[in-house]
């Protein structure tokens, strides 16, 4: 029963290929739009120019912390084209001291 599944999908794929063939013949080459990796950047600026940034890491949860001359920072907001900021990370209170 389970084995039948890939066969079914293969038949359907073949059927749909055959149907499209006619249109494609008029072009010598057609680029098939397969996914590719697009890079982009989300920037986080320091709000205070006197700050030195030392190290940044992201843990398994995606929590990012930046060690700076003013203690731990974390990124706040930010999206592609809309830079966020690095703000003091006070989530664990004892870390400040």
């Amino acid at each position: 029963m389970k084995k039948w599944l890939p066969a079914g999908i293969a038949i359907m794929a073949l059927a749909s290929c055959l149907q499209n063939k006619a249109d494609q013949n008029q072009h010598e080459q057609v680029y098939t739009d397969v996914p590719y990796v697009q890079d982009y950047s989300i920037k986080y600026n320091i709000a205070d120019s006197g700050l030195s940034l030392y190290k940044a890491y992201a843990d398994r949860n995606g929590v990012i912390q930046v060690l700076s001359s003013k203690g731990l920072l974390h990124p706040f907001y930010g999206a592609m084209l809309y830079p966020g900021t690095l703000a003091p990370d006070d989530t664990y209170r004892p870390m400040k001291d």
Partner: protein
Amino acid sequence: MRKQLLFTLILSIFLFSCSEKKVPDAQTTYTDIPYRQDYSIKYNVTDSGTVLHKAYADRNGVIQILSSKGLLHPFSGAMLYPGTLVPDDTYRPMKDKKIAGIRLYQNQLVYLDDKAVFSNAWAGSLYSRHGLPGAAVFAGGDDFAFLISDGSSLQYLQHSQVIWESKSSEQVLDIAYDSMKSVFFVLTPGQIFSFSPADKQYTPLFKADSLICFTIASEGKDIIAGTHNGYIIIDASTGKQKGEINRKLPWTALTAVTEIEGKLWFGSPRGAFMLKDDGKFNYYASKRWLPSDNVKQIVNGGKDMVLILTDAGLAKICFKTMTLEDKAVFFDKQVRKRHIRNGFNATLVGMKDGNLGTGHMEDSDNDGLWTSMYLGAEAFRYAVTKSPEALQNCRESLDAMERLYSVNPVKGFPARSYERRGYKLHDPEKWIPAPDPEWDWKSTTSSDEAIGHIFVFAVLAELVDDEAIKERSVALIDSLMQHVVDNDLYLVDWDGKPTLWGKWNPEYVNARPKNVGDRKINSSNIIAMLQTAYHFTKKEIYKEKAFELMDKHGYLENLMRPMKEIGPAPADADDWSKMLSHEWNHSDDEMYFLGYWGLYRYAFNDTLKEKYKEAIIDHWEIERPEKEGAWNIFTALTGTKEFDLEEAVWYLQEYPLDMIGWTVRNSERKDIELVEPNFRGQTTKEVLPPDELDISRHNGNRFDLNGGRNGNSEYSAGDIWLLPYWMGRYLEVISAPANKQMHR
């Protein structure tokens, strides 16, 4: 042929997936099909002196706001991260125009200044001159004709020709155009007029007091007019009022009305609301939804978006098509990124006005309890999906729970919480230095903690196929329960004294009058705990103790006592019992339902199991008005057919994505039916949806109408949402997303 094949394929996969199901065929399952989830993106004005007039979005999604400081547009902004409204300088000449009106015409932005009606659309070709330098109100008709007004005069113009003009005896507030009947409607405080461009007839249509706003609705059949006290439906052809004025609204002083995709939306000084098909309203108020409750205008923002302009900024109310599983993914990120404190499931507190860049994670009296509920969710998730992330989440939170036992020197006694030395937030007197000088631990552990611990250790031991986790969980159950048994059914603190709430001894439990809830809850919980301990350790002592309590001390009778008998202690009762029973205890509900896992699943025998089921269903019956998602799902563990699955799904869908503790006020709403004060604290006939109430955990009263603290905290979805969802998935009363099932 192809269709037939596809159909067979789908059918086979469906049958195949059904045959894999393990759970009772008697229970219905909710198929997780996509639904519309609403959320808000707010844009605040940065300068408090700016007055916002109107906002529109064109066919490209370009949003402009006309303000006392010219045109503004939204900048940045996302859900939970408000953007701002900044000057829109994209078209440089606009700065120097005295723009008094903005409107949408053929889905393009059109402006009215002291000289003309004009636009930057249509290649800039629209520039229709007029003769009313003070014009501020306008609407477009057919073929670029516009009816404009400065409040006291009206002009109808086309291609810079004034075709008709007239004085108005009353101030013109607004103009609308019905393209079906080719007629304009003009709103004044006391009347609505119609203007027909064909025969230039300006005719009174409808008379009323205090008209504020209006819109054409129902494909031109009706005019909806908002007043200072309710709204009126008017037949747009005859000018006759349809029915009584409608005043059963969240707020009756109306400032705006519009129809979007067949739904009426209203604005008021107390938020916005949309009339649903069932005659009730979706209420959008508080900073969860709006920069301010003072709504000035509501307008279609394009596909799946409504714009609400307030005096403090703009809100985009977005409707996203998603499944419950999508929501679980969203909430998983929320918990993992902002709510894990040393492995505990914590609240982010001390935030400034909901700013997620601020705040810190608090220690809680109930770190063990809240974490047990989140950890339970992750265990159910792992049982269903075998996700390695879920398993790791389980390990990390189990580490935190386990350390509650090792951070303090008392054998088998869990701390409430721990924190690095000197940083306790709450109840300084309850904190004790740990043997490790880096740490303090919180004493006085309560029965809430104990039942949470036993619930989740049992779930882990039963459902997570990881030997280390199983062993550790069983060891923790044994450790805690051995402590309780060794200490005569008390939880005994570092000072050798029982904690205030950790008391399951008959001497304490049966000292409460029969109708006082504590007698029932403590009996129910301790039997569940002893059964669980026996189930996993097979140590006779736990079974013996449980039967001793049931047979000799009436604990079975106590736990079976119908909920309708629970109430205030009689007049001759002791003060403690009176204090305990002055109102319904919603924390007890939480303890009961967590306890039902062990009470029902690990029942010593089938006779008891049937009895427990009866007690659970009896409890569920009394909870039904609250539509509490978790209690409905927990009830499903008994295999009962009826457990309000629909209401559980409603709870899960209606819970807001924004879990910040914004201040909400519902008690003065005019669309709710208040009931007489009562023991259960039920305030209204029907409970309001979670996205209109304060964010509250499962120990809250869902009938609390007001609450929140100005966005100073963000709750974790771990216990509130993920527990009922993943438990529902585990019990197979909620399916995997419909599209995923097909491919599994």
